């Protein structure tokens, strides 16, 4: 915008306008500085752990390390970590648990999410509220009785019992997220399809499903990340079949820094990848959830 777009204005007004624009520019500049500072606050630790995970073990032990970009690159630390006892099995277990959890919780939650967003029925509010209450519950509170229960059932220390536990933790979030995804698709679309001769199921499959798929995929990815990250229940419920975080936590006290740093970065990877894909859905997901 230049001053030509607002003709026949007194010079004083123009001056005020200019001043406002200048102030706005300064503020914008400051916001950029602020944004960069916060980005640094988040990325510098990640970059440091990355450089520690991909360097020689000697560098990890050395001191002082100097400034960041000059740390020599090598896959030695990461290779050492990945070849340590129980890590490969841990990765496999973690992925198995996370996949079962995401499949189970999506399958169970999707119908409930659809019901909440599409129907008004007696008990709907109670259901919503109890889901919210469950979501706010600490994992710690549930893990101990669950562990005791699984031991009594002889169903302990298996990726399947851990998946059941993780599903209980992720289910409420998934229900609310999927409900918000369905709520963003107008019901009129479904109705229109039915007017044009679709059965309710056909209308759902051909009209609604393609529209909600990206949102549901985002929620599934988030479920995966939640399960991958979960440490407390995993270390309580598994002994032999530890997931990766449980294995790293268990080895934490008596392992080298090279192992710890490489492990720390390895645990971070899914977040670095998946957050890129689901960042746009975050507000949909959590915005709705918090209401």
């Amino acid at each position, binding site marked *: 915008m230049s001053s030509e777009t607002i003709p026949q204005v007194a010079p004083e007004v123009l001056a005020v306008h200019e001043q406002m624009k200048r102030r706005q520019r300064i503020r914008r500049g400051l916001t950029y500085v602020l944004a960069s500072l916060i980005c640094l606050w988040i990325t510098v630790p990640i970059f440091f752990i990355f450089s520690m995970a991909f360097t020689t073990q000697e560098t990890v032990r050395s001191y002082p390390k100097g400034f960041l970009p000059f740390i020599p690159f090598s896959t030695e630390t990461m290779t050492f970590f990945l070849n340590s006892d129980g890590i490969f099995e841990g990765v496999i277990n973690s992925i198995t648990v996370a996949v079962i959890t995401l499949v189970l919780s999506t399958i169970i939650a999707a119908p409930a999410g659809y019901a909440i967003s599409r129907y008004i029925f007696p008990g709907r509010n109670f259901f919503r509220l109890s889901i919210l209450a469950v979501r706010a519950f*600490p994992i710690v509170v549930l893990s101990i009785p669950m*562990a005791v229960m699984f031991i009594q059932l002889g169903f302990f220390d298996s990726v399947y019992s851990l998946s059941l536990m993780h599903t209980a933790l992720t289910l409420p979030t998934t229900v609310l997220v999927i409900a918000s995804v369905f709520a963003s698709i107008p019901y009129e679309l479904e109705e229109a399809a039915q007017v044009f001769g679709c059965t309710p199921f056909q209308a759902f499959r051909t009209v609604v499903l393609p529209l909600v798929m990206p949102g549901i995929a985002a929620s599934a990815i988030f479920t995966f990340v939640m399960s991958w990250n979960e440490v407390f229940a995993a270390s309580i419920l598994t002994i032999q079949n530890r997931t990766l975080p449980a294995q790293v936590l268990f080895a934490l006290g008596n392992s080298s820094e090279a192992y710890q740093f490489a492990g720390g970065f390895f645990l971070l990877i899914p977040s670095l990848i998946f*957050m890129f894909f689901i960042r746009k859905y975050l507000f949909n997901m*959590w915005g709705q959830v918090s209401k």
Partner: protein
Amino acid sequence: MQTKRNWVPYLLILPTFIYLILFFAYPMVRGLNLAFFDDEANLALHAEASSDAAIADLIPQSASIEILGRQGNLVAEEVLDENNLLTEIWFTIEAPDVDGNTVTGWASESRIRVREEAEDGTPIMGTVRRRLGSNADPLTSVYAEPNENSDVIGQLEARTEVQIVELATLEVWFLLKGENNGTPVEGWAPSRYIQIFDDEITGRVDRGNSGEFTTKFVEKMVNDRFFWPAMRYTAILLLLIIPTQFVLAIVMALVIQAQLRFNSFILYIFAIPLGVSDLAVGILWFAIFTQNGLLNSFLQTVGFIESPSSWLTADSRNWILVAIWLAEVWRATSIVMVIVVSGLQAISSEVLEAAEVFGANMWQRLRYIILPLLRPSLQVALILRTILAFQVFAVVIALSGGDVVTVLANETYRQYFDLRNSNVAAAYALLILVISMFTAVIYLRAIRTQEEASAT
């Protein structure tokens, strides 16, 4: 929205509902049970040596007892491998008695020497053992039932050949005498609950089989040497983390709302910590604060310090707290930011523009317009964050080893995992639950009073 009343929505929510009952409501009840109910508090003493007999008395776990008598009793197969279980084997035998009549009845394995076995090892024939000792009864009794207190149906001479028809494994039951709160009690109990001392006539109740309400697990928790430190550090961390987090989250949300040029990229960076586990964050900040970590390297290169200082040792508790604080702020601010951004998106830009036209500066707009309108979102975020703050666990272990600075969740883990005491662990878990619910209620109360105050 469909308002027609039908059963479809109920059918759709049914799986979720069932799942939550199974894996949420039931464990909650079980948790209460674990924390307040001692399953093994008392041992039931039966009037007769049979689990069907009436329960005469209860005797508390670990009471000392005196053994008055013993008797075998048929035992279920699933308890056979339990600790302390004493068994004896009895045979159904068929043999001529002293009078020459053939009797069929029960005799203890200890009285019969097996002479012949079937291919699978089942004894089929044997002879009656001789009783040793000068004044011992030379005859061996055959009983109507597999125990020595039942009717004698015949007497066998030593060395009589007997056919072994059948064999039964019996659990030994003891008739025992002890005290319950000063009152003497007496009755029969199975051997698997009892530990017998070497003299074979005294022992103690190893575990009970009849539960009772107890506060001993809660007492044990409160008297644990880590309990009060855990409470204190949990509270300190809560007070440090939450305000910082909210200020930072609001700043981050305003940056996102400013729609800078690389907004999408900035959002990606801001969102990364949302998906990072607390263990990874603990290790991340451990890498910074450890002796030869980033912080010391940086300070030394710049010239602030001469030699590496140690931040994470027992002598520098406060620095451990600072490290945990920074780690938690780093990790969990993103979720608050996301909630605040969705709150901000709901504020119409016209309101803000109007304020700007009337000359409100940035701070005034924040203080008088944005924050009040954000209040519902902030409430949700506050409650969520407070409850989640009680779960801080792996960060603490990674940064302090779990001993120097400890929190409630960490104590739950220690009780369960290291000390194998699931009852005390359940008590800790319940405490966390109660505290988080209590805090949530206090917040809601405070918010409501505020609203009432502003309404009048």
